């Protein structure tokens, strides 16, 4: 029997049992659609995080005080800091050719006020280099001045949100705000809408690092951001930074240097695993659909006993009957898969419209794998019913009224 005729014949039988076929298509398409949509969500989450990391800065290394046991892994959450990471440590770093910029950072929380308005926000002590490293853009005014980092100049750059809350419609530039009991002159405002992993750039104030150290009364730095000159310079910059600190800390290797790539790889791995897991769980619904295919086909066989007997009487060999029913379940599963892909496409489109900032997109393997699993399920779960059909005794099949 020719393939085109086989398909036509099989389609005819499927259309003949309309309700059953439609229910099956529904089950199969829901399975396929959920695999594709869920993996698209997982993939979207991965891309979202990756994008966020990319926004952190390019060729970025983060130095923090304390030795982490797992090199290149997550920052140490516990454990004492053996020796402070100081401003002069940071200032010694840019002497190396592989290092483009260095931004020493201190972080704390403090009440910020203007006139009678007060807000508790994050205060970041940084230098001019912090702005290009973190891709921060200035909405109005200037960033921190390019001065000796050791100088505690009382100026401040505000996040756009904080500016609105403190000043309302007033012009902030040149005005004096209070942080704790000290006064700082506002010299710049960040562009609004800045968002970075775990931190809203809208609600913060940036002051010179020396000023922050004096404000929080600490000689130690929270982090040192190091920007390598190029991608290839990252390992060199890492080694150079480590050597410099060891030299200055009497041979002690007491800082942790995380490369952005290492962090990225970790997150990438976690989110990929998440995507596979979610996809795998959704694939269970495909297996359920497969069991439904089997049931539907078993019912089809029992309802078409006379027809099967007839085909055998007309000289169809057992394996032809087997093939007919196998193809019928594969066609059923395959059409369900195609409907499922259409549903998934619409779903992803709709989600993309609803959440335009979330980069939802199905990875290419997802629809391919979903369709392959659907077809395989159809084939696998079609075997039992098809064998039952092929083994029917034609005499009994035909004598049943």
């Amino acid at each position: 029997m020719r393939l085109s005729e086989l398909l036509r014949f099989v389609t005819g039988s499927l259309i003949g049992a309309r309700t059953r076929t439609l229910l099956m298509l529904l089950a199969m398409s829901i399975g396929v659609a959920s695999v594709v949509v869920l993996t698209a969500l997982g993939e979207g989450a991965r891309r979202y995080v990756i994008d966020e990391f990319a926004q952190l800065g390019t060729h970025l290394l983060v130095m923090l005080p304390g030795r982490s046991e797992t090199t290149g892994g997550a920052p140490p959450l516990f454990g004492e800091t053996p020796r402070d990471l100081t401003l002069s440590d940071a200032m010694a770093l840019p002497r190396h050719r592989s290092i483009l910029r260095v931004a020493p950072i201190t972080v704390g929380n403090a009440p910020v006020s203007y006139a009678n308005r007060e807000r508790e926000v994050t205060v970041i002590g940084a230098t001019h280099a912090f702005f290009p490293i973190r891709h921060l853009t200035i909405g109005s005014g200037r960033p921190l001045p390019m001065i000796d980092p050791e100088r505690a100049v009382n100026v401040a750059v505000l996040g756009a949100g904080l500016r609105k809350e403190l000043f309302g419609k007033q012009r902030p530039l040149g005005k004096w705000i209070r942080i704790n009991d000290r006064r700082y002159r506002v010299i710049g405002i960040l562009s609004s809408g800045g968002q970075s992993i775990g931190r809203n750039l809208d609600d913060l104030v940036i002051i010179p690092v020396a000023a922050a150290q004096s404000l929080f009364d600490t000689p130690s730095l929270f982090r040192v951001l190091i920007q390598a000159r190029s991608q290839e310079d990252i390992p060199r910059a890492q080694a150079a930074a480590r050597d410099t600190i060891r030299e200055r800390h009497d041979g002690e290797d007491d800082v942790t240097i995380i490369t952005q790539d290492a962090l990225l790889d970790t997150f990438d791995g976690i989110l990929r695993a998440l995507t596979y897991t979610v996809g795998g769980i959704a694939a269970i619904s495909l297996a359920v659909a497969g069991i439904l295919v089997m049931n539907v086909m078993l019912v089809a066989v029992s309802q078409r006993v006379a027809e099967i007997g007839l085909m055998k009487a007309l000289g169809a060999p057992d394996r032809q009957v087997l093939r007919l029913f196998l193809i019928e379940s594969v066609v059923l599963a395959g059409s369900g898969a195609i409907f499922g892909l259409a549903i998934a496409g619409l779903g992803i489109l709709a989600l993309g419209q609803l959440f335009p900032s979330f980069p939802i997109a199905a990875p290419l393997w997802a629809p391919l794998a979903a369709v392959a699993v659907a077809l395989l399920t159809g084939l696998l779960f079609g075997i039992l019913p098809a064998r039952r059909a092929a083994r029917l005794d034609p005499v009994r099949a035909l004598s049943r009224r």
Partner: protein
Amino acid sequence: MIELRGIERHFQVGDERVHALNEVTLDLPSGDYVSVMGPSGSGKSTLLNVLGLLDRPDSGSYRLDDVETTTLIEEKRAALRRSHIGFVFQAFHLVPRLTAADNIGLPMMLAGAGPRARGARVREVLESLKLLARAQHRPDQLSGGQRQRVAIGRAIVMRPALLLADEPTGNLDRHAGSEVVALLESLNASGITLVIVTHDPAIGRRARRQIRMVDGRIESDSVDDAPV
């Protein structure tokens, strides 16, 4: 040419062993016209199923055109059924979702004939059955007599040498029944071997050769030299 020798067929029904065919020996020359009559349960259908290679006897020999069929593998028997044998059933057994034309073409499609060759042959058959106007009707749009004629068309579309009809008029009124018998007889007249199982003595008497079965045995086998 068909030769049955000492055919035995038993069925186990519960504790009881039914002797459906008991020492059946029979020769059917090509082009013969045979009616099989007898009480219900006497083995007529079983005999027809054995003749049609749908059922395998427990013992005995069945030679079809000098080929011993009882030892053939199922695949070969299916191939012989396809090329040599046509069935007509009391219940018609048309595929409800297919048109008359597609029902008639079904054996050719299963045999792998292309749509063009099939279309031509089906048209020829429809014409000879005077069913051309009904070609695109589905079985539920046809009368009983028309359905059985479609079923006969399906049985002969592969040009078999042997036509087996198991109570072909059992579900038809007298008028439709005699039309169907006339059609079968005209096919026999053009050379096909015809075996009809029937309960109707009027139909049975029309055959050149009349077999009467009782309890799985051939009780009488008479040849009427002066056919009607």
